[in-house]
């Protein structure tokens, strides 16, 4: 019982300590970072935040790019996955099981191995440096997870609800609008948030598709700072960028922790 009570603060420290260190770093002057125990005329500063926010392109630009790519790929994912998962929940057992096995296989696949072929596609079709184009591979890569989660949600709906609507004369589209979508809204919410997180954080494809610095997404912009040199990374401004880049995600996780967990576990239970 005592173990149980002490595990919670331990877990919180474990998860948050590195972030707190970044927060601390972001407010320290460079001198204070190099010699933390010496006396400094000035220990605290906002200079790192100023340099990050006033850089060219400004840091908020990256946040906006990630947001744009994330929202667009989430929408595209849903447009593709909703009809597919409805269909999968209605198909006969044997076909559905086969397709689900295929989906699980694809979900397991470390997609980083695909970047070269996707890069070739981007070159061939001139899709590089476009955030809109970037949402296409994101939506496609999100299909296995999204279809599996939404199929479970559709399969859990009582069939009589849809039968009743058919007797009432609702077409398939009307049934989607009035019955199916409102009833699986919780599953759509958890799917959306998981797909959004994937797109927001995706690195290898964004790294190879986007080179124009005004179009970089957050993870690539962060890595670019690192790419300059191993030893002369500007840690102060970088910590400030980490803090700024983390805030939207922390807010997102705080707001949506329930659908995130329920989405992840419903995938685990049925899979």
């Amino acid at each position, binding site marked *: 019982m005592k173990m149980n009570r002490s595990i*919670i603060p331990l877990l919180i420290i474990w998860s948050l300590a590195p972030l707190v260190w970044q927060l601390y770093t972001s407010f320290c002057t460079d001198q204070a970072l190099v010699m933390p125990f010496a006396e400094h005329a000035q220990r605290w500063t906002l200079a790192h935040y100023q340099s990050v926010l006033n850089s060219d392109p400004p840091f908020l630009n990256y946040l906006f790019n990630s947001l744009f790519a994330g929202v667009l790929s989430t929408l595209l994912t849903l447009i593709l996955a909703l009809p597919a998962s409805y269909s999968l929940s209605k198909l006969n057992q044997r076909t559905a099981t086969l397709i689900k096995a295929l989906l699980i296989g694809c979900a397991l696949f470390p997609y980083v191995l695909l970047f070269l072929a996707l890069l070739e596609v981007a070159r061939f079709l001139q899709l590089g440096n476009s955030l809109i184009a970037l949402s296409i591979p994101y939506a496609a890569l999100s299909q296995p997870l999204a279809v599996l989660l939404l199929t479970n949600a559709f399969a859990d709906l009582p069939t009589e609800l849809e039968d009743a609507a058919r007797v009432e004369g609702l077409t398939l589209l009307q049934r989607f609008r009035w019955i199916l979508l409102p009833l699986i809204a919780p599953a759509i919410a958890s799917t959306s948030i998981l797909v959004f997180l994937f797109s927001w954080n995706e690195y290898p494809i964004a790294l190879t598709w986007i080179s124009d610095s005004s179009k970089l997404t957050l993870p690539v912009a962060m890595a670019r700072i690192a790419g300059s040199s191993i030893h002369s990374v500007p840690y102060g401004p970088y910590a400030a960028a980490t803090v700024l880049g983390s805030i939207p995600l922390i807010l997102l996780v705080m707001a949506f922790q329930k659908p995130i967990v329920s989405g992840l576990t419903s995938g685990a239970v049925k899979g």
Partner: protein
Amino acid sequence: MTTLLLLLLPSMLFMAGVFALPLARYLWLSFHADSVMTGLVAIPNDGANWNRFLNDLRYWQDLGQTLRFAVASVTLELLLGLAIALLLNQPQRGRALIRTTSLIPWALPTTVMALGWRWIFNTPYGPVNRLFESVFGHSLNALGEPSLAWLTTVYADVWKTTPFVALILLAGLQTIPSDLYEAARLEGAGALTCLKKITLPLLLPYLGLALMFRMAQAFGVFDLIQVMTGGGPASSTESIALYAYWNALRFLDFGYSATIMIGSFIILTMMVAIAWVVIATARRRSVVGAPS
């Protein structure tokens, strides 16, 4: 029936476009030379790529390193995650707080924290080195020593994923009906027996699933390594995905990079197949031995 298939089609086509097509393309490219030497034009080269692949010591060393990373981090994540989940599996206040703080490391972009770790493990200015120096009197070159650098990357991965694994296993634990434990306690079973005979067998599907997904993900580790160590020092943390990336974008050898990817895909498929058989056998045995 036709309507159903039509609804399924767009999604399947998109998936085929990003999963099947690239693999087919890799397979084709792996039998061609396509690099700066050929002016980036694919020319058939009689399996020379495959010959090179099989004798490429750097690749096999990277494969070993990748597996070492995957096994170490996934084992730690599952063990720690299971322990935390068991300790947390009681009704208590602050559930939302635990959930949120556990999800944050998992939700943050890997690259963001990877650079954060570089600062934290920095020698001489990072906090870890300062702490080490003040205790042991000499410095700790966590990212500069090959023997330490890979452990540092494992630590970063464990930090990111353990709370998340704990959360998933906790959800699994909560599906176990409490009357199973009550019945066992009436029979006189102790806590350890309950854990061995009820909790673990019923949690096995979750553990198996988490194991497979985490292994496959760790096998493709890229973001973390590329940003945190760049594969160094002396290639000691280089993963196969990073090696393939170097081949394509630094050496501009697309043919060989494709060979590495399809080769790795084959190796991964074989490992998953073996794991599947092992898990299926274990599950069958656990069903036979499970309390009914």
